[in-house]
């Protein structure tokens, strides 16, 4: 049981939770994730750690309401307990001085990018962060990102804030402007796919942090498998970060959609039960 110390709304559907987890706070590194389960009959879902405070013994998670489980997590309040949490899991991000690094994040992907950008900056890289979202309200953690980046570029689909355009437009502008040594991308799978296609064109090494379906998260079930460079890999123990140019994103997208029908039904049921309109 892990207590929620504070809760903050980034938008209607995105919340930031600061959770008591002293051991994880102590051992986690940038890139690690935790498995979280809400309720006795809850589902185990992976969430990348956004931040940690060793002194306070807390970790920070940023969660977007997507399905039943993320909604249950978002509905918890300060003082409530997360039933089960385990971690840190996965391999930590490989950090070194690469030169100039573009951190391309989309939506809630900005949250797990924060510690990576911070670690890259600390290692001496020039960090150019691109935060992209559909619209202004969905741009999160801009201020914190500015603290750990040499430059922050905001992209919105509708042009309501920053530059109008997709994350890939932002990346391409930087590539045309200066030499980029590495690109790190975290966001929806479809976004990472297009980031990967773009940087491949320019021959820029790219790392993507994958968020696949997992059950145990500890290297046991194989639900998270992806094809990387023609070989089956397990995101939970071989990842979550991979060479984006080797990832079969189409297969990953297909596998992510595997439970969509069941998930939709469950969500409807939950909304009906809570009295909301489906």
């Amino acid at each position, binding site marked *: 049981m892990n207590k929620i110390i504070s809760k903050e709304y980034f938008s209607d559907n995105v919340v930031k939770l600061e959770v008591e987890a002293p051991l994880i706070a102590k051992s986690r590194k940038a890139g690690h994730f935790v498995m979280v389960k809400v309720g006795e009959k809850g589902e185990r879902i992976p969430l990348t750690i956004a931040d940690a405070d060793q002194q306070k013994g807390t970790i920070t998670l940023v969660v977007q309401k997507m399905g*039943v489980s993320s909604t249950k997590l978002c509905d918890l309040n300060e003082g409530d307990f997360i039933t*089960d949490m385990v*971690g840190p899991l996965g391999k930590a991000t490989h950090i070194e001085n690469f030169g100039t690094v573009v951190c391309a994040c989309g939506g809630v992907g900005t949250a797990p990018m924060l510690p990576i950008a911070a670690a890259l900056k600390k290692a001496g890289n020039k960090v150019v962060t691109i935060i992209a979202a559909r619209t202004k309200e969905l741009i999160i953690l801009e201020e914190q990102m500015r603290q750990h980046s040499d430059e922050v570029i905001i992209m919105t689909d509708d042009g309501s804030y920053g530059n109008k355009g997709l994350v890939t437009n932002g990346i391409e502008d930087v590539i045309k402007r200066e030499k980029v040594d590495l690109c790190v991308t975290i966001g929806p799978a479809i976004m990472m796919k297009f980031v990967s296609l773009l940087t491949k064109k320019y021959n820029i090494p790219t790392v993507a942090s994958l968020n696949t379906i997992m059950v145990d998260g500890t290297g046991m079930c194989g639900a998270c498998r992806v094809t990387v460079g023609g070989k089956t890999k397990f995101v939970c*123990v071989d990842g979550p970060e991979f060479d984006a140019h080797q990832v079969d994103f189409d297969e990953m997208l*297909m596998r992510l959609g*595997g439970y969509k029908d069941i998930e939709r039904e469950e969500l409807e049921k939950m909304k009906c039960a809570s009295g909301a309109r489906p």
Partner: protein
Amino acid sequence: MDIAEERAQEWRVNLRNQMKAKERTDIPRVHMPELDPVYRSHTRLEEVNLGLTPEMAMQEAKRCLDCANPTCMQGCPVGIYIPKFVKQIETGDFGGAAKTLKETSALPAVCGRVCPQEKQCESQCIHTKMKKEAVAIGHLERFAADYERESGNISVPEIAPSNGIKIAVVGSGPAGLSFAGDMAKYGYDVTVFEALHEIGGVLKYGIPEFRLPNAIVDVEINNLRAIGVKFINNCIVGKTLTINDLKQDGFQGIFVGSGAGLPRFMNIQGENLVGIMSSNEYLTRVNLMDAASEDSDTPVFMGKKVAVIGGGNTAMDSVRTARRLGAERAMIVYRRSEEEMPARLEEVKHAKEEGIEFMTLRNPVKYIGNEQGRVTQMILQVMELGEPDASGRRSPVEVPGKTETLDVDEVIVSVGVSPNPLIPHSVEGLEVTKWGTIAVNNDTMQTDIPMIFAGGDIVRGGATVILAMGDGRKAAASMHKWIQNRDQLVADNC
């Protein structure tokens, strides 16, 4: 008291003299009462085997000749005092029988259900040498453990006075529980760390309710709590805590029983299509996460045409689960013939009664999916048996050009697992074999790091509950000796 002294006790002698050996061997072996196959193939949670009645158990116990040289015990990885507990059942002392079991086994109600007795104790029974059916030792073990549990009068095994020495166990599966039980009896302060949210490892996530109810596993775990074993869930040694953290916390010995890990796949075309998963994933969803229940948030596919690839016990558990979740066709696809199947005979028999189809001498070579990426068909290569291979079993060889197409909407791949990579990856200096298992001295289960011992699937790669328990027991005995020797050395040098 050694085995011969026990056997020479008056009550045992009298009991032996009550019946002639011939009369005992003439009694037919008891039949385990079972749920009706048609009924049970649609009920997910009810146990198939119903257990013996006291009368049945006492009658069966009479069949045991109480041999001077009980070879059955040599067939038991944990060395249960088999004739003693069987004879206690014959006299009606069921509680005493349960107590005898607990002297050497941390999980008698579990072993009585899932051990392959026909390959162990029962295969060594004197009856089999006379071409008769072995005494149903497994059924009797289950009976005694169940009787005690249901009576509510659960005895606590004798434990040595506390020595205050802290011991850590990594993983709460059969190896870890067996180790923890023995170390607690030796007087150690034992803490078991479990990565998942539930205690029990494969007994919870792997073996289905219809073969081993979780409630029974919980009782055995509570018995360990009663002798002082502590359990911490949601904690991964090597990740949440390092081995060094444990040392700093004062732990003086560590047993690693972290079990099986990554499922093996066959690396064939289409294997990552939606609806194809490992047996670990399928069983974890259904057993650990209770995904088939209305109130569970975890989803699971309930296929109508389900193929399970493999011929082991896990494959049988998966296919029988699929049947219970509503599969109209639940099929085993196995590349050898039924004779070579590693699954227990009882599991195969039960599966057949429940309408499972056995498609032997077939090997999948390709999967085909629809636009959504969901599997719809599989191509099977027809096989025949050739010369015996390294395992001594006749190896399957392809019949050239002969393939079949099978309609499926769910496929469960159950062709084995590799050891869990977390501990081997995270403990510096720990010797690991080329298969990814932890290397140990087979006599002591000690690794090349003296304070770390290991056993179960993390050492064996993939075996049975009882072999894991045997490892745990062996590791406990040798760690106990190692600590005593170490302390003796320190004392001598003072």
